[in-house]
């Protein structure tokens, strides 16, 4: 049961990979890349979860309740993967924006979003 969530993330990654590889519509390929990105971000945060943990954000109530910073450290969830995922989310937004810019420009030149059409037109 414990690895069920990991397994779902890898399935999401596989669905994204399948979409990016076999689809003929440019926008679908970009969606496939975005799905893969979501899957890996979720997988990273899952790896950092501690059973019964609380968010790694300290405030007066938390500090008072858990006595001292080390006390809080025992109860808090791992903060490092959250920092990495924050970076990875924004990277995936940047890549999606660039790919959409390419798609818009390709549509303007070729008049279609179909990958097979592009190859044929290039001739």
């Amino acid at each position, binding site marked *: 049961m414990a*690895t*069920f*969530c*990991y397994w*779902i993330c*890898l*399935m999401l990654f*596989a*669905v*994204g990979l*399948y*979409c990016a*590889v*076999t*689809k*003929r519509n440019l926008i*679908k390929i970009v*969606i*496939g890349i975005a*799905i893969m990105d*979501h899957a890996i*971000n*979720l997988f990273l*945060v*899952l*790896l*950092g*979860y501690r059973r*019964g943990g609380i968010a*790694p*954000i*300290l405030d007066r109530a938390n500090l008072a309740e858990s006595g001292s*910073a*080390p006390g*809080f*450290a025992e109860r*808090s*969830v*791992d*903060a*490092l*993967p*959250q*920092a990495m*995922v*924050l*970076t990875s989310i*924004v990277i995936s*937004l*940047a*890549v*999606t*924006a*660039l790919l*959409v*810019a390419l798609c*818009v420009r390709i*549509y303007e030149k070729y008049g279609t*979003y*179909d990958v097979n059409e592009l190859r044929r037109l290039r001739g």
Partner: protein
Amino acid sequence: MTIVLLLAFVLGLAVMAALVAVETTDTLSAVIALGALGFFVSTGFLILCAPDLAITQVVVEVLTLVVLIRATIARGVKTISGGGELFGRALALVALFIVFLVSYEVLKQLPPFGEPAALAAGAGTPSVFYLLHGLERTGAANYVTAIILDFRGYDTLGEATVIFTAVLGATAILRRRAHKRAEEPTRGPFIPRTELEEDSP
């Protein structure tokens, strides 16, 4: 135990949204399904005690939707139906099955869901150091921001550069005219490329 059930429910919905995004023929509904996937992932972050990520994921998802819809709805894009070549799909399905087998075998070797290797007792990992000394060393109460801007600020510099590069690249790609016309003044011998067809008819 309820966390795993809740997560399984949310992730199951996420996988369903992904499958809808992949299999539907209309591009616009595919983009909206991607949006739904993003919001499920954001809910998953909330369940996993990552409020920073939930906020960022929701807002970034809104922006991804705006950008993607901008590229689809304006074009009145026709539905590109008709499957990819059958052989490709079959090959992909076989590959998926192999990935499923390998991953199930491998994931059993990862530490179980509740006990991350980074926070294991006695593991001299940076994560334990950040949780122990985050407040006193950096003064920031939000450990994620402390890591992003102080412990690993160099990552965020790379991150800011990634956004800057993507935006600069998008504006460079979307500029109206890429090659100067022959009559424009340029120093040195200038011969426009012969196969260069004009940008627009």
